[in-house]
């Protein structure tokens, strides 16, 4: 039987990729370990190695084809005695772009997986390296963006990179440091092209020593520089949390206002996909309990850009919580010379009158879908994207609750001492008389993140839970 060679998943979050180059042609003999093709994901260019021995009978996908879904047959390998004639499969049509389904976060990546090409071969800017992005998601207009502004569909990943690049152009004291931020172009390609534009002095690869380099970053900030410290994930920042909290957050107070740490700690936070307990924790609630920190957790690319620029300019330490699953998603980003959004201001994602949902970051992916479903059932939900967890824009939440009388919060973090329970407490204290139902909080389950796909799905919130919660508070 001829063997189908399938489009491989080269990272935990990869759903599709570009088959950039064939290194073997039909009729070539291959043995296991031979590199047969190059595949470009949104994070890296990887080589595909043959697993079996045989002769390439047919190449099913042309070089240069974009959006090839994982597990699509890309070539057929003939075993001894077989001929190309025995291949019955029709060459499939060009695959369509994968449909974004953020509700079931399919995949997230780990830079360590696979065999990445030498960074020097990487294109210098994303303009030369169009990464496959998921379809654009529509978002309600932000009053902070002037009406009539031209919008450009941009991934969260590109938006973050653009924000850093713009701020580094503007301010010589801004630099970025972290693991794989320079030569590798970013473990998740968020810092792509920065080394080429700004050089190794300002784009600094660090050893894998989070505690130490976070401390170095804080020290540099105390000396007046404006570091952007990238954590490959915030899970690893637990090693550095002492420097973040005891040094960065408290120095301004302890020095009587003489010196602080004007800096940003940023990186992917929360669950990715199938990376299990130690790599899947949401720290929004942790950092948001610390005076002296600001905590930002954007959902859209526009917010990612405008708020990261604000975070870099902010004279305080800012925890900037990104999400790996959102990196590849596209949103409209205003084309403005200097697009900066205010930290500490929620955005009303959708107006509504029957109930309020408050969410932030990837929680918004559940919330937006729930809102759409509820709309079909005649429930008009007001959806608030908190955007900043600390300082929290409670007035916007309370204004909404005064209107709807009902509140549901949605997040992926653990349920005890969650951001939602904090919101619930404060709304109960400040707007009790306006509530027509108990506040419900949807969060991740009270368990370490399991690995098994079915258990992982159960551990995360889902759209159905959100829909049900809204119905419950509406007594429907």
């Amino acid at each position, binding site marked *: 039987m001829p063997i189908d060679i399938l489009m491989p998943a080269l990272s935990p979050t990869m759903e599709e990729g570009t088959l950039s180059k064939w290194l073997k042609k039909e009729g070539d003999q291959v043995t296991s370990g031979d590199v047969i093709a190059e595949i470009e994901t949104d994070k890296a260019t990887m080589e595909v190695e043959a697993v079996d021995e045989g002769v390439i009978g047919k190449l099913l996908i042309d070089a240069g084809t974009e959006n090839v879904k994982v597990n699509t047959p890309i070539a057929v390998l003939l075993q001894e005695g077989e001929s190309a004639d025995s291949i019955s499969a029709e060459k499939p049509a060009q695959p369509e772009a994968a449909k974004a389904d953020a509700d079931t976060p399919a995949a997230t990546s780990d830079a360590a997986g696979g065999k990445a090409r030498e960074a020097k071969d990487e294109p210098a800017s994303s303009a030369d390296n169009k990464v496959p992005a998921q379809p654009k998601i529509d978002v309600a207009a932000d009053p902070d963006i002037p009406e009539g502004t031209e919008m450009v569909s941009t991934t969260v990943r590109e938006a973050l990179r653009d924000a850093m690049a713009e701020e580094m152009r503007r301010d010589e004291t801004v630099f970025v440091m972290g693991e794989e931020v320079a030569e590798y172009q970013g473990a998740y390609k968020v810092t792509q092209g920065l080394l080429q534009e700004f050089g190794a002095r300002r784009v600094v690869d660090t050893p894998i020593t989070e505690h*130490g380099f976070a401390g170095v970053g804080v020290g540099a900030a105390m000396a007046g520089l404006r570091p952007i410290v990238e954590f490959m994930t915030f899970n690893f920042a637990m090693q550095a949390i002492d420097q973040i909290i005891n040094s960065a957050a408290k120095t301004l107070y302890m020095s009587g206002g003489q*010196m602080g740490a004007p800096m940003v700690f940023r990186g992917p936070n929360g669950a990715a996909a199938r990376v299990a307990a130690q790599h899947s924790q949401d720290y929004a609630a942790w950092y948001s309990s610390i005076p002296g920190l600001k905590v930002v957790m954007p959902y859209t690319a526009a917010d990612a850009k405008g708020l990261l620029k604000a975070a870099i300019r902010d004279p305080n330490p800012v925890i900037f919580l990104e999400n790996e699953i959102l990196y590849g998603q596209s949103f409209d980003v205003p084309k403005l010379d200097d697009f900066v959004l205010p930290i500490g201001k929620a955005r009303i994602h959708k107006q509504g009158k029957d109930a309020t949902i408050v969410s932030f970051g990837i929680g918004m992916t559940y919330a937006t879908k729930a809102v759409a479903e509820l709309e079909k059932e005649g429930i008009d939900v007001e959806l608030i994207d908190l955007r900043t967890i600390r300082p929290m824009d409670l007035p916007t939440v309370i204004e909404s609750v005064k209107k709807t009388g009902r509140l549901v919060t949605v997040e992926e973090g653990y349920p005890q001492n969650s951001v939602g329970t904090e919101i619930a407490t404060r709304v109960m204290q400040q707007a009790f008389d306006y509530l027509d139902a108990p506040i419900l909080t949807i969060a991740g389950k009270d368990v370490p993140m399991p690995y098994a796909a079915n258990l992982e799905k159960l551990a995360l919130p889902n759209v159905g839970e959100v829909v049900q919660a809204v119905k419950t508070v509406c007594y429907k």
Partner: protein
Amino acid sequence: MAPSKTASVSGRKSAAKPAKKDFNGGTIAEFDKQQELQAYRDMLLIRRFEEKAGQLYGMGFIGGFCHLYIGQEAVVVGMQMSLKEGDQVITGYRDHGHMLATGMSARGVMAELTGRRGGYSKGKGGSMHMFSKEKQFYGGHGIVGAQVSLGTGLAFANKYRGNDSISTAYFGDGAANQGQVYESFNMAQLWKLPIVYVIENNRYAMGTSVSRASAQTDFSQRGASFGIPGFQVDGMDVRAVKAAGDEAAEHCRSGKGPIILEMLTYRYRGHSMSDPAKYRSKDEVQKMRSEHDPIEQVKNRLLEKHWATEEELKAIDKDVRDVVSDSADFAQSDPEPDTSELYTDILL
């Protein structure tokens, strides 16, 4: 108290040559009269200040933790004589001496110890958390070892800016076992950052002697696996410290990266005010005091060389006591911070 810029050291061995390893050995800087008097006065100020702080603690004016520097004065005073304007200093929680040596005012430090509004941190930092942007003093850190990474960051900023400044990060033999110290050593050497790591080996990490806590007690060699040179220095002799400080500063300023100085020193008092120091004998302490006291050494040289008379030294002592008394009076009479300060300086 300003860093001495007039030091001309003759007879100092070449920078490449390590100091000798024996406790009372090492390269000795030759001090002129002015330097000896300066060192005498600076060390005496720290000692009298700390004695007064201990007294105020006993009277209940100072709360919380209070770690005294008595016995270790030569380390920071000698190092400070090697530094230039713009060089940064950062240390742990045994920090009063470092603050005085960098030129911070006795009033400001003492008022911080008593938690008053005239303190360096408006009373909000206390003994372990004081800073002075003006004097390039970056704290005052209560987490053991944190200042090593932070100090490395200060050096990173110097290199980033391409200036001539160096960072000096002080830490104890206890902190020298912390993981982030080695993460910092690695980055400092990798990036050739201008930093002097000053390990103040006072023989006890709180109540645990170095031999009970450290597999390798030669702390000067703790950077060996990174290729960071390190030397043991007689930290009880201010001239040895100055000589080592000069070599280290030259090493850093010439772009060779970090260097480690292990200061062999001794603290006379307990770890903190609440530590009776029963883990060592009275004889051990007495022997250090009588044979190696850093201030007595300078005093004896001044008298031997007829650079000062007993009367002149007494006059210095009186001046110093006046400064300290004034700081103590201020620290007791200055009001506590206004209650509105509770909510200030959290965010800018």
